[in-house]
């Protein structure tokens, strides 16, 4: 009897511990925003937690969120602090919902439009997986900022459109997203990095994706000698725009693990230089 009890006690303790652990684990089962509710959840959360009215809709694998505002930019063309907070709060709601949903979404687009005064429109495009990674500290906030696509423009069609009818919904794809991200990163790089900024001038960057080929047309010219610092010795190797651009592109493709392409055709109109690389060649670039 005593022996039986001795044997029974650890078994009971084990079963109890198992039940307790299962209870805790099962409490984690199920997502906060099940598939099919993501768009509505964003609208509800914005309204409930920040008193912001947004229109949200899922198109393909992209979540579109429209945020109509009375005013977006001030007289200086800058987004004021209050409006900035509103956009940030709306973006936060989008991030929270996308982090905790099992809906099959790849991208989100947040469009904040001034529907009363100028028709200014701010667009924010992001990749869902990037949200997870920045939250898990897998990428830095700086890198995250570089991965998001931002755009501010005047769109008269936005005036008076509180429902977002003027927005043409589409399903974003990865290749286009990466190509756009690439051109923006190159622009930032050549404009912000002192070493490059002293030597080159960024004029434009265009991209196309055709027949599984990235077509990247840059126009980055070398500054006149008088504009630049004194030349170093002839032994010093001058940076090549296409080398820098390809390195950046290889980095982006590698970080996203994107392989759904065959070639890259990159050109710099300023120097009439063009290069065509296969996927394998791109993989070699470090």
């Amino acid at each position, binding site marked *: *009897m*005593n022996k039986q009890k001795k044997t029974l006690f650890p078994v009971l303790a084990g079963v109890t511990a198992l039940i*307790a652990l299962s*209870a*805790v*684990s099962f*409490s*984690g089962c*199920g*997502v*906060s*925003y099940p598939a099919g509710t993501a768009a509505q959840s964003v609208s509800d959360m914005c309204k409930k937690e920040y008193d912001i009215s947004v229109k949200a809709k899922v198109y393909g694998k992209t979540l579109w969120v429209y945020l109509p505002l009375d005013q977006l930019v001030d007289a200086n063309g800058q987004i004021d602090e209050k409006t900035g907070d509103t956009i940030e709060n709306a973006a936060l709601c989008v991030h*929270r919902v996308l*982090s*905790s949903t099992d809906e099959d979404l790849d991208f989100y687009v947040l469009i904040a439009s001034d529907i009363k005064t100028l028709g200014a429109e701010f667009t924010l495009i992001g990749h869902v997986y990037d949200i*997870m990674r920045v*939250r*898990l500290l897998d990428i830095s906030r700086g890198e995250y900022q570089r991965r998001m696509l931002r755009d501010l423009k005047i769109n008269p069609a936005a005036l008076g459109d509180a429902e977002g009818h003027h927005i043409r919904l589409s399903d974003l794809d990865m290749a286009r997203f990466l190509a756009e991200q690439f051109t923006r990163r190159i622009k930032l790089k050549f404009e912000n990095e002192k070493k490059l900024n002293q030597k080159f001038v960024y004029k434009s960057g265009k991209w196309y994706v055709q027949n599984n080929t990235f077509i990247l047309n840059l126009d980055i010219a070398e500054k006149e000698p008088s504009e630049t610092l004194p030349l170093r010795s002839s032994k010093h190797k001058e940076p090549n725009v296409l080398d820098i651009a390809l390195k950046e592109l290889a980095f982006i493709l590698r970080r996203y693990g994107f392989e759904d392409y065959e070639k890259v055709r990159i050109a710099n109109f300023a120097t009439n230089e063009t290069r065509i690389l296969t996927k394998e060649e791109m993989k070699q670039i470090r």
Partner: protein
Amino acid sequence: MTTPKDSFPTLGKKQPTILKQRKFKMWMMQHWLKVAIIGVIVILIGLSIWGLMSLESFYRNLTIAQMPISLLMAGIHASIFVFMYLTFLRGGFAKMDKKNIKGARVDVRWDDVIGIDEAKQEAWEVVQLIKDRTKVLQIGGKIIRGILMVGPPGCGKTFLAKAIATEADIPFLSMAASEFTEVFVGVGASRVRKLFKKARTLAYGYGACIIFIDELDAIGRARQFSFFGGGGETNSTQNQLLVEMDGLKDNDFDIIVIGATNAAEETLDPALMRPGRFDRKIYIDRPDLVGREKVFAYYLNKVKHDPAIDIGLLSRKAVYKSPADIENIIKEAALIATRRNSDTVTHKDISEAIERIDMGIKHPKKMTHYERKMVASHESGHLIALYILHPTDDVFKASIISRRSALGVVHHQPREEYYTQNKDVLLAGIKVSLAGYVAEKLKFGVTSNGVSSDFRHAMAIASAMVWNYGMGENGFIGDQSILLGGYHRFDRISEDVRQKLNEETNRILTTCLKEVEDLLKREEAILDRFINELLKKEELEYDEIEAIFKEYGKAGMKQSLRTE
């Protein structure tokens, strides 16, 4: 003897509800920490679930994903903490092993206690007193607080204590007194306090409780008070025991302390023995012939055995054996039977087991024929003298196979327990010892150094007879050794008296020697027969010995000598 009833004795039958409440309270007192811990764990788990449910699934999954490593780390930290705590704060892992066994679970039935009927009778009274405390109080009786069981080791003291607990259906806490003692002063006392605290809790719930302290002499010896502080730990442990036993009077439930010792009662501290402490003594001696028969029957029933085994003969062979010795004999016999691929224990197995235990394992030596014959003569001399001259002992075996340091042996046992030896028995002992020497001299004309221990034994008996027992025939009565000098004592015995006593000692030896010489010359045919049999077979069993004596018409002679 009445059958014990299932009831909680000390509170009577009218208060089962109170006892139930007490049991619950006792359970809570014993397990409050566990209950509290389980409660806290349940609350924490509830809070965790509630907290997790309030999180968005991203953070919830994140938390759950980290849980295994968190649990592992918590487990490691807890283990380190427990190890440090036990090692540095609680005197290590060698903590008091408290046996918390409910009386019924000790499971030693009254009928299992065998061979100690007198002690059982006394213990039964104790059981009755425990079972009907109210009745005792009504007639103004005194509740027993302490029982001291005194007796040789292996006679069933612990067994009897457990049987008391089982019969009284009360919890039984058992500890060896040596478990109290530690190198640090105060640890023993603290363990005594803990033991009694535990007992009080159990007694509160069950109405009564037995504390059994084995080998009580380890803490119960007469206390020593020294300026140098020696024995401080034992003293403080014993003091605490005395205090706790005094404190038992204040309670309305029974705690009975049973102490067991195989040390002499006088060695225990008088304070332990005074009324109110260990005032009831139960003497547990080795079982007598009937007792041994019962014990043999009991343990034989636990193994497959030959039904032809003569338990009476075994009991005669096992004089002075305790129940534990008998149990050991049967276990050893079972091993011997197993070794010879038999599933039944036979008389021979048991005989071999007894010999193995008493005489040691055989170590055959390569001896010359001359040496073997010398040993055979020596042992045959012992054998004949024992059989014919010894009034109390039976011969069970003769052997010329060496065991331990002896080249041969004659195994003999008293037929029954004798607590005194008269002059005849002592003289017989001398004659038996000298018989080996006489036989060697008779058959070879010379003697060997194998007689050394025999002579020592014979001389010791003869000397004691003259010097100590007043059995000499030269008129000296009294214990003459008292007059001998020693530490802080002058020699008060004259050389003349000393010489006379020694002469008398020698006279006894020479008289015995003459008698043995006459005997062996007279029975030389039997001596030669035994020598030859031993040389041929190396060992002779009881039946074979008996048959040879019968053949020579000596069986009746042995009997008549015994009954004198």
